[in-house]
């Protein structure tokens, strides 16, 4: 279990605060983001909301990718918040070659770029495709699966904020059970998103047997950077699914983005793991398990579960999902 050692969590945030510490680390292990020579791939001045997890995740991921690829990077972006807030002409927050085509075709456009590079004998350039959960698990899913199946040389990053945010918070295939969105309102007999739905794309990616699959979260930015860096070193189809809170869509305080993300991980609702060629090779253990309520209560999209009267059945069902993850991914071993 050499791998497991490399995933040892750096536990430098102090109890009660949610800032990630770098000062206590030696230079070599600090985040890319803390370096003076970071590339600011997604530069400041874009128009994301305050506390946007997606903006945070993309910035860390792309800067790490730039460093790992020696600045030889091309990125494709599906339609969605990230694309819209970063790019209205004549401005662009991107300092890297970046292209937006459509909502549902980012994986295929990236495959095309990879093919062109191959035709031109450029094996020094890394191709990244990125999109939200909607672009990834719903409308672009066919293209994504095709890209995996052909093992095209593309790293795909999914920023999962669990709904279609760009169009005003509608449900996606990644919206969790019971969550309120504008197409799964908190009304009627079963308020919020129906239970039993959802699509676990990391596991589906895994089933394609591609060289590298990982889940990551802005809860642990060191870990996110490490996984991106590792993925850049691998050839073929790679997939990283990043959990990114959206204060607007989740109804959470913009100042609580890190807190919310960490509670998703610490409760077991968002398991962090890595897989190679279809096999899970390691997962990140939970430090101190928290009940799912601690996570849910910070978000108005789950407000209806807290009543009155409290929806104990729903809360139990969500707790069961977390417990299941903990068992399946061995998060408490």
């Amino acid at each position: 279990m050499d791998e497991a050692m490399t995933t040892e969590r750096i536990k430098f945030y102090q109890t009660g605060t949610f800032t990630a510490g770098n000062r206590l680390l030696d230079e070599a292990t600090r985040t890319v983001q803390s370096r003076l020579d970071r590339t600011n791939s997604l530069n400041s001045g874009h128009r994301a909301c305050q506390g946007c997890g997606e903006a945070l995740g993309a910035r860390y991921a792309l800067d790490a990718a730039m460093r790992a690829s020696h600045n030889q990077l091309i990125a494709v972006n599906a339609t969605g918040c990230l694309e819209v807030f970063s790019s209205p002409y004549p401005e662009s927050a991107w300092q890297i070659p970046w292209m937006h085509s459509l909502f549902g075709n980012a994986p295929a456009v990236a495959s095309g770029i990879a093919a062109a590079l191959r035709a031109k004998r450029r094996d020094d350039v890394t191709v990244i495709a990125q999109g939200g959960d909607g672009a990834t698990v719903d409308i672009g899913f066919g293209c994504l699966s095709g890209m995996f199946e052909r093992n095209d040389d593309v790293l795909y990053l999914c920023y999962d904020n669990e709904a279609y945010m760009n169009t005003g918070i509608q449900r996606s295939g990644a919206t969790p059970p019971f969550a309120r969105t504008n197409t799964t309102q908190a009304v009627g007999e079963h308020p919020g998103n129906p239970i039993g739905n959802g699509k676990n794309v990391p596991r589906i990616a895994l089933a394609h047997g591609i060289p590298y699959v990982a889940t990551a979260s802005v809860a642990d930015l060191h870990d996110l950077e490490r996984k991106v860096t590792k993925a850049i070193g691998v050839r073929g189809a790679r997939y990283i699914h990043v959990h990114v809170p959206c204060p607007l869509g989740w109804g959470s305080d913009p100042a609580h983005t890190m807190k919310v993300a960490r509670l998703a991980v610490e409760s077991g609702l968002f398991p962090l793991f890595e897989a190679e060629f279809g096999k899970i090779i390691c997962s990140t253990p939970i430090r101190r398990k928290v009940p799912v309520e601690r996570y849910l209560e910070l978000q108005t999209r789950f407000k209806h579960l807290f009543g009155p009267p409290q929806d104990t059945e729903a809360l139990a069902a969500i707790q069961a999902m977390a417990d299941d993850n903990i068992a399946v991914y061995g998060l408490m071993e």
Partner: protein
Amino acid sequence: MRMQIEGSQAVADAIALCQPEVIAAYPISPQTHIVERLSRKTKQGHIGRCQFLNVESEFAALSVLIGASASGARTYTATSSQGLLFMAEAVYNAAGLGLPIVMTIANRAIGAPINIWNDHSDSMALRDAEWIQLFAEDNQDAVDLHIQAFRLAESLSCPVMVCMDGYVLTHAYEPVDVPDAVQVNAYLPPYDPVQVLDPERPVSIGAMVGPEAFTEVKYFSHQQHLRALEVMPELVEAFEQHFQRRSGGLCSAYRMEDADIAVIAMGSVIGTIKDAVDELRNTGVRVGCVKIGCYRPFPKFQVSALLEKTTRVIVVEKDLAVGMGGIVSADVQSALQGRQISVHTVIAGLGGRSISTSSLKHMILEARAERLTEPYFLDLNKTVIEQELARRRDIRRAGPVAEHMLQTMNVIGTKVS
């Protein structure tokens, strides 16, 4: 009941009154408010046993409805722009199968460059997909057209698109008389399909047709659509009897009695054109306006009849056939074949550019003075074009056109006005 209400909400309420049994939708601006309200209403149990499916793409949305409609259910969806194009294959298919699906198009431009604002490029792209296309002038019209659409679709076994201008209508709050269930039930009979998947009486739907009959099948479709030109006026009459107001129709005239000049258009710009017509009339210009309410099938004879005394026609359209010019104006021209009328094409309001009364008035006077270039682009900023052309002459790797144009114009971020 007459109320001050958002266009999308009014339309959603009207759809609910039509009691669809299956709704499938995929979000895209500016259609979202309509389907969000329908999702809520279904979830609250306000639309009977209606099933609302949150699908994974527009292609899936319409495909779900194809299945549902073939099983005898009344069906509805709404989309815009990229979404309509994403479902394109199913759009043709639904029509070919003769399924009376009703779909709202919240009209929006098509990218690239990505643009979420209003024009008619989306429904124009699919104008020949064998769907009836109705265009709403205001939100009252939008509400009424949807109710008529179900009756029209089901009586002819053919799908109908109701086109309403994105944002301009979907997001506008204005007074609308939203009818009640009793009125709608009296006007709209229950759906009685001509073909249905039924274990009691098995039929095969959607099998292959070779060269022997494909032409005849298409000819039949063409005839069905032409029949819509006869059916629609009857539906409008019936609608008036039930609801005590006149709505919809193939085409209509405004102050055309003695007009030398007719401005022809579709959708919400009609309102602004009427204001321009009134203002010009006050200065003695004999101008009128013709609204096309039904674009497919195209009411050739009816339009031509309204232009009996006209010598000059100006078609104002929110779309562009690049490399050719106008789309609607080509249809108008074919309707006026053999007549001595000058037809001008005016491209306006692309990608959400506001069409002002003053620009319209200026343009009409220029047309009268024979000073319009063809096609004429309303409010075109020529300086920007010249600068960009010059730049491209000098630099080979000139980069994205849009980026540099906006830089020349000193625009920061997207702005609408």
